[in-house]
């Protein structure tokens, strides 16, 4: 349609699919070797076994590290999304002093190198006389996740017809009620996306966690690092890792599917026509 030659199309297709292969093979290997009976992930595959999964779930340290990451991730998701909503509301005000500067500051965590931020937070804790803790990790994660929340929520908020909130107020609701009944439901898809993105950002974050998590309470990424240096731990980590990989892929598919479903639901079933059959006979209602 845009004039790519037959040969060009073939070459580009090969190139694309080769890259897809390149991208997915390492992920595949994690899944494949998770079921490998042998303790070292090499060919040939000796036997099919699920005992690494059992070991992984039985390993309390691994489990605890995972739980810590899930907890911190969920809290990061909630807090960052809440702050993201606030930032979006504030940025959608008609007139805002120093709007450009505020946006720049809110998006700053996107560019600051996490290693510099991590050591900076370490210094901050020291100066405030505080010990390193998982709370500190949480706060660090909220800061780095916040820009993503804003980038997801703000455009969605902006796309809403401002007259709708005015209509709600016109019809008798206060500002807060109007927000809860009109704005929030319509924002919901973006809030879910924001939560997921912030969760993932926190769950996979290594730099800040490596400096601020106490040595006895590592998060999953920190545990993964020290564990991967230990040959004995490797199969368990691979098993757990394969689950995480599959889980994230499933989440992506669900999220995309869910997003499309939400759009459809928001606009009513597209299949139903604009009521020609149900139209009253009167000429006045005819369109």
């Amino acid at each position, binding site marked *: 349609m845009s004039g790519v030659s037959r040969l060009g199309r073939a070459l580009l297709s090969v190139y694309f699919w080769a890259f897809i292969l390149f991208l997915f093979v390492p992920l595949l290997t994690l899944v494949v070797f998770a079921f490998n009976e042998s303790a070292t992930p090499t060919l040939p595959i000796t036997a099919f076994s699920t005992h690494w999964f059992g070991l992984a779930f039985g390993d309390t340290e691994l489990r605890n590290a995972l739980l810590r990451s899930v907890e911190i991730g969920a809290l990061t998701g909630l807090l960052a999304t809440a702050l993201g909503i606030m930032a979006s509301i504030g940025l959608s005000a008609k007139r805002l002093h120093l709007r450009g500067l505020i946006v720049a500051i809110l998006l700053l965590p996107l560019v600051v190198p996490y290693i510099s931020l991590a050591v900076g937070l370490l210094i901050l804790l020291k100066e405030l006389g505080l010990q390193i803790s998982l709370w500190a990790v949480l706060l660090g994660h909220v800061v780095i996740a916040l820009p993503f929340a804003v980038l997801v929520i703000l455009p969605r908020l902006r796309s809403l017809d401002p007259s709708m909130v*005015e209509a709600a107020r016109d019809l008798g609701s206060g500002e807060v009620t109007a927000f809860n009944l009109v704005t929030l439901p319509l924002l919901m898809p973006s809030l879910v996306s924001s939560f997921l993105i912030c969760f993932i950002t926190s769950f996979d974050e290594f730099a800040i966690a490596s400096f601020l998590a106490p040595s006895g309470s590592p998060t999953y990424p920190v545990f993964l690092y020290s564990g991967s240096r230990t040959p004995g731990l490797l199969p368990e980590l691979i098993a757990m890792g394969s689950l995480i990989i599959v889980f994230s892929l499933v989440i992506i598919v669900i999220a995309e599917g869910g997003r499309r479903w939400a759009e459809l639901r*928001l606009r009513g079933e597209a299949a139903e026509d*604009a009521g020609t059959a149900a139209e009253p006979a009167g000429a*006045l209602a005819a369109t």
Partner: protein
Amino acid sequence: MGGEIRLERLVKRFGSFTAIDGIDLTIPAGQFFSLLGPSGCGKTTTLRMVAGFEQPTSGGVLLDGVDMAGIPPNKRNVNTVFQSYALFPHMKVFDNVAFGLRRAHVDKSQVKQRVDAALEQVQLTALARRKPAQLSGGQQQRVALARALVLQPEVLLLDEPLGALDAKLRRQLQVELKALQEQIGVTFLYVTHDQEEAITMSDQVAVMNHGRVEQAATPREMYEEPSTAFVADFLGVSNLMEAHATGPSGPGVALELGPGVAVEAARGDVAARGAVKAVIRPERVRIEPAGSGGPNRVPAMVTRSVYLGNGVRVIVHLASGQPIVALVSNTEGDAMPDWDPGTPVTVHLPSAALRILPVALPSTITEPAPTA
């Protein structure tokens, strides 16, 4: 039944920009009242101040004598039909219409009754379970109407509600809206830039320009007796002519339209002398064969004629160069003269149709001293 709106010395500034430059206007209760004007004239800003979405910089908005200052929109007995309809897309039609009633904590059975009645009134009963995205533009507009009216406000504000609809549907809904207003008796404050809409629907019209009201009157008064050149030109088409008023002549004033062109004007400010502006509507201008005699007849030449179907628009030029547009109704059918360019004709400007515009704009208020 209340619903009278009074705007007193109303001024609205956004930073350094003055959107409303001083308005004094009374909108009587129970009327279909239009605010008419071009984009940017301030009509929507005025509407929003009545609704409560903007606060006046100075001056007052009074509903039935009560000053609305500081009263938020949700507490005013005024409801709005928005230009974009602003229906809640995630709620069914029924819930959209019920929204205001639920905010007022009306009990459930009452809610159902009133919503059903409102939907019946706009003929959408069958669509109550649909979502707005499944409705056509015209149907959405009705929902917006029902949603506002179900609350039984004293005043209904409509912000160019028919703008997004095609011409045929628009005409249909104009008739419906007018009938609805007459039926329920609520004051309708209607904003539009479409002068035909304003003329056909309104009891009274206020023409706005640059934040001021140029004239407020019934459609007929405004059309026949525009008080400014702007109003004359905004409502329908006018021929605007510079002239020199010399002295009384019969019931009116003697005018010189150009060297040797003398006519009599019997309407408007006939006491004015000197340089004046005269207007005459194209449909009142008569094209007669060249050489016709009689008062107020001027020789002219056809420059262009445009066939309109229901008439012909003939553009002629006087010897002085003054162009005059005439609208000749299609009463003769095939027997209409051709009026090719270059045809000499006589233009008859009946004195009863020739109006002298008042020299000064009837001023609404004097500007209050700046406060901030």
